[in-house]
């Protein structure tokens, strides 16, 4: 099963926190490909996809951040009307719920990506593949 590794970082929602994180990543020469920040009042979780996953996690821990690793699914979505619908329909048909999903489009390659977490990634991956949809691997997602 192709999955994509994200680093999830615990954060107190206060000024300067993100800057310390990005400084640590810049020091480690890690390039951020995707980022999302979820907050609830004073706390938050920053999730990032970087080109050098292990060194980046290490650098963040060295800088005192609390880091957890997540494996998520990244679906290759056709960049055209109805593209995302095709994916959503497959998931809906199999009763699969998305959690913390987000999407982006790469203009250079005319492709779109839907990143999502779900309780049962095995099943989700299986049904998507059976429906002819492609899941990006870690290597692939870094090259698109």
């Amino acid at each position, binding site marked *: 099963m192709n999955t994509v590794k994200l680093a999830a970082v*615990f954060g107190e929602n206060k000024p300067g926190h993100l800057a310390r994180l990005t400084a640590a990543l810049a020091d480690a020469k890690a390039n951020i490909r995707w980022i999302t920040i979820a907050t609830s009042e004073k*706390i938050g979780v920053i999730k990032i996809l970087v080109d050098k996953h292990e060194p980046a996690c290490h650098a963040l821990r060295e800088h005192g951040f609390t880091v957890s690793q997540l494996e998520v699914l990244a679906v290759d979505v056709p960049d055209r009307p109805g593209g995302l619908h095709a994916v959503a329909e497959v998931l809906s048909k199999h009763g699969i719920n998305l959690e913390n999903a987000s999407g982006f489009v790469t203009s250079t390659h005319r492709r779109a990506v839907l990143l999502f977490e779900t309780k049962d990634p095995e099943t989700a991956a299986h049904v998507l593949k059976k429906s002819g949809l492609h899941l990006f691997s870690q290597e692939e997602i870094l090259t698109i």
Partner: protein
Amino acid sequence: MKTNYWDREVETMKRRALERLQLERLRQTLARVARRVPFYQQKFAELGFQPGALKSLADLRRLPFTTTADLRAAYPAGLLAVKRNQTLRLHTSSGTTGKPKAIFFSRRDVNNAADLIARCLVATGATRDDVLQNMMTYGLFTGALVMHYGAEKVGLLVIPAGPGNSEKQLLLMEDFRSTLIHTTPSYALYFADFLDKKGIDPRRHLALKKAYIGAEPYTEETRRKIETALGVEVYNSYGLSEMNGPGVAFECEAKGGMHLWEDHFLMEIVDPRTGEPVPEGQPGELVLTTLCREAMPILRYRTRDITSIIREPCACGRTHRRIKRITGRADDMLIVRGVNIYPQQIERVLMGIPEVGRNYLIVLEGLDDMLVKVELSEASFDGQVEHLVHLQTHIAERLRAEILTRPRVELAAPGSLPVSEGKAKRVIDKRSL
């Protein structure tokens, strides 16, 4: 249960003989202060108390209390009962506000304090084969020096490491195979965290067996946390500078409360508001009278520490009664929205929740609001913000069940809250009352 004693005769003395000894020593102490200490002369005169009229230990109630304020007022040498050139050592007790309290020791006092520590260490099973890494602050604070002298008396190797500098502590532990440590609960937890971050398993890499933990009140949950994290048996230690420092009361191998050395200290438990004695076994403020102090005897000292006496005899055979873990300081009691709260209640709840890390801070702010900042444990972070929110709610609910008011709970990153090397400051009061 096979028990080792440092001073079997005294430690297992029959209660009646012990009480006779206490009465005799109390009389000597009263005679000494009546002769030499103007502070007590004046107090006795005010109460119309004749030291020679003391008939039994029950008459103790007729004696005046000595308070922290009295010791501050007597600073620097107002309570001295010997000539200055008979004093051998000075300690002061950290005053967070105003003047400190000065405590003088004569040669006999230094020796007695060391002797009590020797009893404590042997009671935990320590022998001369042990190596004690003394991680308390050396200096004006009694914690390290009094322990140091007592440990030397037992004949074990003492490493005067002092506090802080975890890298150095670790190096000493590795190179000299320290088996015992003496430290505060907050530093023990901090150090455990430090080892964890370095990926060092103390059970495999270090020779630690026992930790003597004192100087700050802590809970059974914290004890278990330290025991698990460092792979040691934790023995609770109670003392205060006004009463020599450590070695006033200490746990034996049974770990079921601290034997208070009653041939040196007369203990009472009183209601902190009225000063009236509470029935034995009931919680209240510990009041101590020194029975052997030469340089600076103190009568009925209001320790402000809340505890209770355990009446049942201990399996170890020692006849000196035990006190329970200090559950709070009369001075530490917080009043939030009209509810009386001891910070230890909060600690007990927090340390019983596995997702909680090793440090916390209570902030009182606004009109009368309580915020509890809680470090998350490294292992429990799974990257899901909703789990964090749920945990905050769970902690707030658990706290509400204990302290009857619902505080705001804020999670903080592991290791992000301030750690003190001396006594931990867990409460910050910013209220605009």
